[in-house]
């Protein structure tokens, strides 16, 4: 019984804690803010956010009552939109990447020019991969023992490392391709450059020779 109550308090606390104590920053109401997450494929990303509106009367930031919403847009490395929706002032967004690479998460409020000039405070927390896993939920759902839970976490971590390693190979390949392309470009350029120089030199000589002969200077 005691254990249960501890669990419940823990879980509620996690939820509360996650919602209220993340990093925050300020943006203008019409401003757009983007974050980049470079992630392997098949990786889960959880974005928690909360928006507060500047309240001139109290001089502080209040949870907005005016129904301000956030437009969240997620783009994959091919610049395709994988998620674009208007959410309320507080929300949790979950998505899984299908392509490895840079995913751009953009947020902007749906406010019209009505409030323009006002400041928004955005609490944001982005968790990627195994950090995005909510173990509280797993404990409740699957009734794992402590050791099982620990092992579960280790498995998740190893999975993440494997994915990252795979992605590393993918990027290394791209890096190598770029370097090889630079290498061959430098080679071909020097060959072409020499050819161009020789052709131009011969042309100059021949042309000047005929010119001098025509002018009877030689």
């Amino acid at each position, binding site marked *: 019984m005691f254990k249960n109550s501890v669990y419940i308090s823990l879980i509620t606390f996690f939820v509360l804690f996650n919602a209220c104590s*993340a990093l*925050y920053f300020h943006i203008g109401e019409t401003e757009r803010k983007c974050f980049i997450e*470079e992630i392997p494929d098949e990786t889960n990303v959880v974005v928690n956010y909360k928006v507060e509106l500047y309240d001139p009367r109290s001089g502080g930031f209040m949870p907005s009552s005016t129904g301000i919403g956030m437009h969240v847009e997620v783009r994959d490395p091919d610049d395709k939109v994988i998620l674009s929706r208007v959410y309320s002032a507080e929300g949790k967004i979950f998505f899984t990447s299908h392509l490895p690479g840079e995913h751009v998460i953009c947020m902007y409020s749906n406010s019209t020019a009505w409030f323009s000039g006002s400041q928004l405070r955005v609490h944001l927390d982005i968790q990627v*991969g195994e950090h995005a896993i909510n173990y509280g939920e797993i404990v409740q759902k699957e009734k794992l023992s402590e050791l099982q839970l620990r092992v579960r976490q280790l498995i998740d971590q190893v999975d993440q490392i494997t994915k*990252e390693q795979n992605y590393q190979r993918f990027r*290394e390949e791209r*890096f190598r391709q770029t*370097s090889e392309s630079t290498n061959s470009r430098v080679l071909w350029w020097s060959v072409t450059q020499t050819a*161009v120089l020789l052709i131009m030199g011969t042309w100059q000589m021949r042309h000047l020779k005929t010119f001098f002969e025509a002018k009877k200077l030689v």
Partner: protein
Amino acid sequence: MKTCLVFILILELVQYSIATELTFELPDSAKECFHEEIQKNTSCTLEYQVVTGGQYDVDVTLEDPKSNVLYKQVRMQFDSHNFVAQEHGVYKVCFSNEFSTFSHKLVYMDFQVGDEQPLPGVGEHATVLTQMESSAQDIHKSLSSILDYQTHHRLREAQGRKRAEELNERVLWWSIMETLAVITIAFAQVFVLKNFFTDKKPNTQFK
């Protein structure tokens, strides 16, 4: 007793937090600030690295709730800073690109506050850990550091890759320009030389 325990647990939990890792764009002459509420006596780590842009440098300042500057670096490429919060309040980290007028930068930041959150239900009992549990904990720690190193490696790799891509493009443009320059100069030389001799001719006739 029970309520007391729960209270202690909660108090303990307040100190725990999640690390925030963000990669964001820093436009030219812009300043980006992040705030975080930190409890007293929490040890925190701030890490950052400029991934691309300009000379890969950024100005960083860290301020405590009373606006005292705890850490300030000018034109740093990457660094890591550890500190213990002396008081409870909102700490502010600012990244500034104000010295740069045209280079757009990509900055990675990792702000870790407190220790890692424990697994729910784990570590709340006072009994000694079994060998299995303690090795699980050790493995977890090692894996966490592997993930950390991977992140660093990934950033370094991104830096190298982006520079290589830039180099590739520059080589392309430079070679095109160079070829054009050689051709133009060749024609110009002939033209100038021809002019030189045609100008001379009337002079000799004049004599």
